[in-house]
């Protein structure tokens, strides 16, 4: 199904710079197909969770107004090299994906 997320996490002095790109169409459900004139059904990520060893750090609630293939950069305190950050997303069509990345 979905392609892998791209996650980069680098920690300097306990402050981790997390960057992630998720492959997702992020269809807001407002657009019409130019050929058929029908509405394109909504398909967007509703929630992204970022965890560090089962401890929830950040939850992002999104709407269809987030760009296609969403990008998020986030600075997190007290995340150190060799910690494992887990990113999970859920979309409005019931799909989800989870991936872990070791902090460098």
């Amino acid at each position, binding site marked *: 199904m979905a392609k892998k997320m791209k996650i980069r996490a680098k920690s300097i002095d306990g*402050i981790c710079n997390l960057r992630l790109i998720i492959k997702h169409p992020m269809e*807001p459900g*407002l*657009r*019409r197909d130019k050929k058929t004139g029908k509405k394109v059904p909504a398909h967007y990520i*509703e*929630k992204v*969770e970022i965890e*560090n060893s089962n*401890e*929830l*750090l*950040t*939850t*992002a*609630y*999104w*709407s*269809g*107004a*987030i*760009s*296609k293939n*969403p*990008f*998020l*950069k*986030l*600075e*997190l*305190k*007290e*995340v150190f090299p060799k910690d494992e950050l887990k990113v999970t997303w859920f979309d409005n069509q019931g799909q989800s994906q989870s991936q872990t990345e070791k902090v460098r």
Partner: protein
Amino acid sequence: MNRRLFLQQSFQYGFVSLAITTGLLHPIRVWAKRPDLSFKSTKIKDAINFLHGNKEIVDTDQIQLKAPTIAENGATVPLAIKTSINNIDSIAIFVEKNAYPLASHLVFHKGFNGNFDVRVKMSETSDVYVVAEADGKLYQTHKSIKVTLGGCGG
């Protein structure tokens, strides 16, 4: 394991599993629900009210919203948010003239360093509001962004 211990433990486990299924012992994330009413609001005032109630919002320069003044393509408008306010609980981004103004609501449980970037869609030239919640108080900042090509489609 003697009989008494067995009975005791089975009773305890039974209670715990009951509590989990009835929602008493759910992990904390369950309480932080997606603010659906706010996401479905078509006016920015309603969206803020559903999210935070009728609280007073203070304009502040402690939140910086970095964004282009003119965005060529409304489909990807990069926003960079930086704040020096401590104990931020959540930050919401509203694009006033989008069909549904609330674009993103980030809830920080632990370890947020006051800095994040995200890309949003904008249907037309509009003000973008950033509303942050810290220690029960609300702060906001806004910026007008000109869009030459809309990104939400027809």
